């Protein structure tokens, strides 16, 4: 096959000592910026762009590819250890990952995230190598109606996060939906719930809400309870390695996460968050230990972490195959291509095959490097939790402030962080789960926009959601996700009380 020989050529480019150096620098920098909330890979590439002008194009892209993959790895580390997701794609990881960390299983959580990311990254890069063009053709079939159906499917996730009280779970969802409505309406340009504040026109940033509800809210709650009930945090309890049981429970979620993440990442409006939600709900439905979810189930870390890495590779598919940037980072990579006078698109594989195959090969190598970098470090990272609590929480709040401020260089956001933190505190005191709030906040606005676009295009005809087989199929799947557990419960209760 010509792809394979081209890929082998690519490896000879990527394995050149200088390029190996760039790849390792890229994954290192990527991991570092992933750890910091606020600065993402897009900004980093923007900053590096002028510096790389004199590079060989292949070296620059090998560097950028490493940064891109590394950032996803890094943000899971802080999500698990400090409950402070660096990017929104790691919000789901924080739920069970941090619970594991508190029980002294942080090293295992980091390991399953690292290995899962490696497995997913490698498989998804392989998929990118061989099926990108076909996949992109399919992705273009997604219009507003199909996206709306996908959002509905993803919203089913929240049913897995509701906790013990249904009313309070729904309260969290509606608070998230309400927060998501703040800002300028994309369709009409009208400001909703901004109360004349320009800072609110673009809405309340999801990273601010995630960091505020998780990190600040938790710090406030813990400090208020410190004197009465001191929850022990164990850095390490027992081995730092994954047990046979951990492996057994992780490998299927890794693979399923990959299968969910890659195609959704390849969708122009897919992103890396939705696959993590879908992976979480899938794992909860399939596991033999649903009672552990939310309290430190390893599947709930393995699946979403694989999914977000696979999605990141998926984003590269429309970029390389069509020149279509579908995330801020992809847009920066496109700008980088253009800096070298290269136009990604259908012809790229022919006109610049050496560059592309070199990039793909270095993505494989970057994945190996990330595993090598992260797996041994897992045991080291968890020692962060040995820092005395006052200093640990002091550090967390300093990082939260830093991340939120650097996001938009805005002091308003810092004040907002405190406000959202207080909301998180109140929710914890009232035993209201915070995760549904964030999921609803991310999905609500997207669902609204796609629904309204679909209905405007159809001039108000609601049949668009069923006349498209793709949309109807996804909606059917969502319904099945909702109803199947309900039916199972019903059958169980009938079996118990005949």
């Amino acid at each position, binding site marked *: 096959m010509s792809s394979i020989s081209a890929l082998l050529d690519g490896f000879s480019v990527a394995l050149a000592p200088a390029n190996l150096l760039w790849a390792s620098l890229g994954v290192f920098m990527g991991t570092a910026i992933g750890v910091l909330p606020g600065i993402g890979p*897009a*900004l980093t590439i*923007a900053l590096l*762009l*002028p510096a790389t*002008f004199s590079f060989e194009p292949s070296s620059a892209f090998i560097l950028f590819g490493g940064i891109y993959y590394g950032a996803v790895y890094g943000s899971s580390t802080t999500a698990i250890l400090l409950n402070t997701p660096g990017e929104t794609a790691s919000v789901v990881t924080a739920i069970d990952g941090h619970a594991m960390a508190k029980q002294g299983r942080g090293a295992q959580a980091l390991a399953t995230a690292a290995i899962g990311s490696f497995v997913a990254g490698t498989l998804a890069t392989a998929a990118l190598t061989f099926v990108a063009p076909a996949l992109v053709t399919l*992705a*273009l*079939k*997604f*219009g*507003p109606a199909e996206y709306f159906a996908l959002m509905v499917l993803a919203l089913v996730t929240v049913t897995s996060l509701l906790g013990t009280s249904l009313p309070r779970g729904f309260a969290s969802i509606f608070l998230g939906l309400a927060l998501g409505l703040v800002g*300028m*309406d*994309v*369709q*009409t*340009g009208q*400001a909703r719930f901004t109360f*004349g504040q*320009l*800072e609110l*026109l*673009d809405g309340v940033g999801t990273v601010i809400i995630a960091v505020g509800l998780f990190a600040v809210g938790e710090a406030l709650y813990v400090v208020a309870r410190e004197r009465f009930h001191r929850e022990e945090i164990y850095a390490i309890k027992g081995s730092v390695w994954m047990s046979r049981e951990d492996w057994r429970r992780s490998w299927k979620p890794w693979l399923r996460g990959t299968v969910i993440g890659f195609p959704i990442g390849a969708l*122009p*409006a897919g992103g890396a968050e939705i696959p993590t939600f879908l992976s979480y709900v899938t794992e909860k439905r399939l596991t033999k230990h649903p009672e552990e979810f939310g309290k430190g189930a390893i599947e709930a870390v393995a699946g979403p972490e694989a999914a977000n890495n696979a999605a990141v590779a998926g984003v590269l598919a*429309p970029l390389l195959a*069509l*020149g*279509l*940037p*579908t*995330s*801020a980072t*992809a*847009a*920066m990579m496109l*700008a980088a291509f*253009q*800096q070298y*006078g290269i*136009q*990604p*698109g*259908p*012809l790229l594989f022919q006109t610049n095959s050496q560059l592309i195959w070199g990039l793909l090969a270095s993505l494989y190598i970057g994945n190996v490097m990330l595993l090598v970098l992260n797996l041994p470090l897992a045991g080291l990272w968890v020692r962060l939790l040995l820092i005395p609590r006052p200093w640990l929480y002091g550090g967390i709040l300093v990082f939260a402030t830093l991340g939120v401020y650097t996001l*938009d*260089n*805005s002091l308003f956001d810092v004040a907002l962080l405190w406000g959202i933190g207080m909301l998180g505190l109140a929710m914890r005191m009232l035993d209201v789960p915070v995760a549904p709030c964030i999921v609803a906040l991310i999905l609500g606005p997207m669902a609204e*926009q796609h629904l309204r*676009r679909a209905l*405007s*295009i159809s*001039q108000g005809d609601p049949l668009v959601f069923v006349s498209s087989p793709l949309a109807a199929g996804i909606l059917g799947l969502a319904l099945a996700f909702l109803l199947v557990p309900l039916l199972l419960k019903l059958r169980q209760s009938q079996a118990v009380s005949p």
Partner: protein
Amino acid sequence: MTIRRRVLLAAAFAVGLAGPAWAQSLDITVPSNPGGGFDQTARALQGVLEKDKLASRIQIINTPGGGGTIGLAQFATTKAKRAGSIMVGGLAIVSAVPINKAPVTLDQVKPLARLTGEYLVLAVPKSSPLQSVEELIAKFKADPRSVSWGAGSAGSADHLLIGLLAQAAGVEPKGINYIAHSGGGEALSAVIGGHVTVGVSGYGEFEPQVAAGNLRVLAISSEQRIAGIDAPTFKEKGLDVTLVNWRGIFAPPGLKDDEFKALAEMVDKAVKSPAWKEALQKHSWQDLYLPAAPFETYLSRNRSSVTAVLKDIGLAQ
């Protein structure tokens, strides 16, 4: 230690007096996220200024939000008298100020130079039955809502163009079926996928898809045909519509005359350098350089015409 510190301070002061501060350092406020049009303009300018040694230690500060009005407000207030500061701006901010009823307007900054611009095009997917802009306009006139326009956010240059087009075609501008997208290639994929009737965008974004045969350009918003772009102008087709998505730079409001002049000279040197021409070509931007005085006139005319279109499409009062 205090003495040494004082010496250092004195030395720093002396260096500061030796030449205008901006000759050493310049900060460029970009009122949008990294990667957007303003950001690319700033980074291209940064490259040229550094390469030609017109300024060193250039720092780009991204302050996104509110369609650029937040960056504008911050620049106008916190940098009011700082000689080494400029801000990138353009049509998008001209339009965002009235839409968002922003308290700080472009009156509070000083126009320094118009730099570049991009013309907008209408394009349809290759599978579309529409072959020409006449067919599109006929369909639009017959049933305005049957034409869905896939483009950028509400009030963007794309939206202004459709407003102008509706007026020229005699269709009520408020009735257009505008499908707003929030960038990131979303609008482009909706057009290629055939989910909207027609796409509107700067030519640069559509160019690769046109080259690959995925899109067909119906018309371009320039006065005359542009070399290298196979598309008629609206004017040729009897529609009196021209629009350019221009970008330029602004200076703080409180500069002394000589400080402002120094900045203007720096920009004048930069836009005449070969490095700048190269950057324009790379991004397929048009060279629309206007020095401060004519730019000021252009800006005030541009602002009133944009506000008028926004009123027509129902986005501003």
